[in-house]
């Protein structure tokens, strides 16, 4: 018996059972079908590692489960990337708001030092630590990830979120302080 005919005789007949496993793991029918296909592709590629005489249904179920969780991890990573990119878009929107309020040169025109320090202190610690390390202490993403024992993606998410919170606070500060209507450059000492 060739490996292929053995696979056809032992693994393929279990397709309906694996389809039910896939269906239980996923929500969407199309996702379940994709997962079944992925499971059998992997099983075929690794067929020589299947222990002859052992329970093929359990073996295939484990492959199916692993494929499902790997895929979900990949998807949550891509969601994280999307969130990070949305923070960059938010920074552009905030600039538009600043422009509309007449304070789009607030960072170059004003000494916001004390206001920035207050805004940083008001952040939740997990955001504050990351923004202080990167933007004040000049750590790289990698150095912060290593120092705090968190993934780089988490460093980025927290950093960008912290920046947005700081920008929002400072825009509110600049507008409230009346700089919006000032026509001449102001440099409070």
């Amino acid at each position, binding site marked *: 018996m060739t490996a292929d005919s053995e696979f056809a005789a032992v693994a393929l007949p279990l397709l309906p059972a694996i389809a039910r496993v896939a269906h239980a793991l996923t929500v969407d029918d199309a996702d379940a079908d994709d997962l079944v296909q992925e499971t059998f592709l992997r099983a075929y590629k690794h067929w020589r590692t299947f222990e002859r005489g052992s329970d093929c249904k359990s073996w295939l179920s484990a492959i199916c489960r692993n494929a499902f969780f790997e895929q979900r991890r990949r998807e949550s990573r891509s969601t994280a990337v999307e969130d*990070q*990119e949305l*923070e*960059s*878009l938010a*920074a*552009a929107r905030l*600039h538009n708001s*600043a422009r509309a309020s007449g304070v*789009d*040169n607030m*960072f*170059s025109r004003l000494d*916001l*030092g*004390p206001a*920035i*320090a207050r805004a*940083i*202190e008001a952040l939740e610690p997990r955001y*504050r*630590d990351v*923004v*202080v*390390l*990167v*933007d*004040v*202490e*000049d750590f790289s*993403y990698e150095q*912060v990830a*290593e*120092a*705090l*024992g968190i993934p780089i993606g988490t460093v*980025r998410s927290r*950093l*960008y979120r912290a*920046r947005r919170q*700081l*920008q929002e606070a*400072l825009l509110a500060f600049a507008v409230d302080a009346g700089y919006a209507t000032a026509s001449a450059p102001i440099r409070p000492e």
Partner: protein
Amino acid sequence: MPNRSECEAVVRQLWPYLDGAVSESQRERIVAHLEGCVNCASHFDFAQSFLDAVAAARPHLPANEVLRVRVMSALMAEGFEAQ
């Protein structure tokens, strides 16, 4: 007139670009776009002036706060677990 979707693709990379965390090919694409797109360039300038202001605020931060973060990071690198 710059292409809107190209503008959005470029602005989505604003923070990573300013942090020097984009690939060389992404960097070139962004630089080329910013040379021809005044509006996107103004977003990047605004964000950079924000980062400069935060860095310049260092003396206003309580020394203990800066030191606390630094010491905690050093401790955690040695395996100390906060919380």
